[in-house]
């Protein structure tokens, strides 16, 4: 696939000349390499700063001039886990986000399959409406959902957050999986049908395995949005179901932000997303572009 594809022999834009010519110009290569390093430095510096802040002692984070070499301390992480309930929040986050991501993938793929394979009246409208739900500012849904959760005893439970995050993820899954499904030749399914499989059997035994790259593409996106979500998490939970973003926000104290602990929370939160994204990197583009662009 994409990543195995060789780079263009004609570097597009950077040069209109044949490769051999470019190679001879080692000066240009050195220039390009230094430019790449510069770009990386600029884009990674804030993250580097966050990670180092997470390991600095309380006064060192805001010290001026900034401290570059320091003895790393785990104190910020200790405070995050022991005093602020970070471990429990991490567990809640993993459960809530894990379950809702799976649900969104299952429910969304089924809907996407139906929209892609069957002749349904007004299916474009249905797809657009699913997309519209994502565009509404979340702030207007908080109050009705809060009242709903209170009424049905769902306040401060995993259930309500899972339901909301599933909904947030659905539009992505439906759109991306629709495209992926359409790329799977119908003939494979038809062959299976002729062999006596039911539609559901075809879906689970034949189509689903072929959809795996698509699922990989969507899982990162759905996970990321749910993992970082703060507004619903803070308003719809109390002591039992609160997730990591809520704990991260608590480190922003009115008197003096515990910058170190905030950074530790930031690091803790970014690690799973980065790992997932790097694992699924080759499918990321399709996920982010609703399946339209192939990498």
């Amino acid at each position, binding site marked *: 696939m*994409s*990543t195995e594809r*060789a780079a263009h*022999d*004609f570097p*597009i*834009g*950077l040069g*209109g000349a044949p490769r051999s010519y470019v190679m001879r110009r080692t000066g240009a290569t050195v220039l390009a390499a230094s430019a*790449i390093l510069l770009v*990386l430095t600029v*884009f*990674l510096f*804030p*993250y580097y700063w966050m990670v180092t802040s997470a390991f600095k002692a309380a006064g060192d*984070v805001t010290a*001026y001039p*900034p401290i570059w070499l320091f003895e790393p301390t785990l104190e910020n992480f200790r405070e995050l886990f022991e005093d602020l309930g970070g471990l429990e929040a991490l567990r809640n986050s993993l459960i809530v986000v894990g379950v809702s991501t799976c649900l969104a993938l299952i*429910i969304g793929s*089924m*809907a996407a399959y*139906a929209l892609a394979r*069957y002749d*349904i009246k007004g299916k474009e409208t249905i797809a657009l409406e699913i997309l519209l*739900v994502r*565009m*509404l*500012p979340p*702030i*207007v*849904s908080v*109050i*009705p959902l809060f009242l709903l959760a209170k009424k049905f005893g769902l306040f401060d439970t995993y259930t309500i957050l899972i*339901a909301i995050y599933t*909904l947030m993820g*659905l539009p992505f899954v439906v759109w991306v999986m629709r*495209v992926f499904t359409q790329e799977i030749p119908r003939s494979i399914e038809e062959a299976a049908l002729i062999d006596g499989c039911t539609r559901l059997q075809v879906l689970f035994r034949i189509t689903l395995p072929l959809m795996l790259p698509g699922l990989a593409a969507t899982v990162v996106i759905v996970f990321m949005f749910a*993992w*970082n979500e703060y507004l619903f998490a803070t308003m719809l939970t109390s002591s039992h179901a609160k997730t990591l*973003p809520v704990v*991260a*926000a608590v480190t*922003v104290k009115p008197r003096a*932000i515990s910058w170190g602990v905030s*950074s530790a929370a*930031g*690091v803790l*939160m*970014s690690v799973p997303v*980065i790992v997932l*994204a*790097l694992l699924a*990197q080759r499918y990321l*583009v399709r996920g*982010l*572009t*609703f399946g339209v*662009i*192939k*990498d």
Partner: protein
Amino acid sequence: MRERYGPWLMLTPCFIVLFVVGIYPLGYSLWISLNAYHPTNPSFPQGFILFENYVTAFFDERARHALGVTALFTFSSVSLSLVLGMGIALLFNIRLPGVAIARALILIPMLVTPIAVGITWRIMYNPELGVINYLLRLVGLPGQGWLGSMNQALLSVIIVDVWQWTPFMFLILFAGVRSLPKSPFEAAAIDGAARWQTFLYVTLPMMRPVIVLAVLLRAVDSVRTFDQIFMMTRGGPNLVTDLASIYLHRVNFKFFDIGYGAALSWAFLILLLAAVIAFIRYTGFLRRATEAG
């Protein structure tokens, strides 16, 4: 029979989630936007007032200001990250050892939690104690006010947005660059076209659909930016970074003017939709997307 009900059966779970968690709040907020509703001030007039909230929104100076800031923010951020993303995509499309790692590493900014992004940049931007001014002073430049300067605050939050989302642009544009066919470039090379000519007349036109898509996705998300900026400026100083999302938050959650807040949200949503539809019409994007899909 199965063929008839099968698709609907498969859509049902999706519809259930949409209705329970999606449509109900949507309907509620539409209804409440037609009401005066002040849960914190029971002595205030309450109840059904038809479109009065929308009329108020139309004449709301703060709302118009917020809309202007949002437009400026979104336009600058998207165009800057487009240019940078394009440049990086072209730069990283080179055969060098280790460049694959660079392509992965550069994705990190877009993967960091927005709240953490806001906190980190707020530390770095601090004019007195932050590392950015420290580095500036190190090379003999004067320290800047950044978030605390009336002239630079908007630029500063745009820089953060550009930093965070250029990797997204890069990712998409890089995929676009990679999928371009070879022959037009060979032809251009044979014709002896200069590099900038090749870029302008060959690369760019062929990349157009990808660029359009990237811009559309980025713009829709950029308009809704909240966490980072709320963490950094809360809309200040003197409202220069008061994005629509921040103003909406204030009306809903500080003033608890729920009816008006809902009306404002819908007004913004309608404007956003209108802009998106106009953009789609103009670029013919959706036709292509749905045909492909």
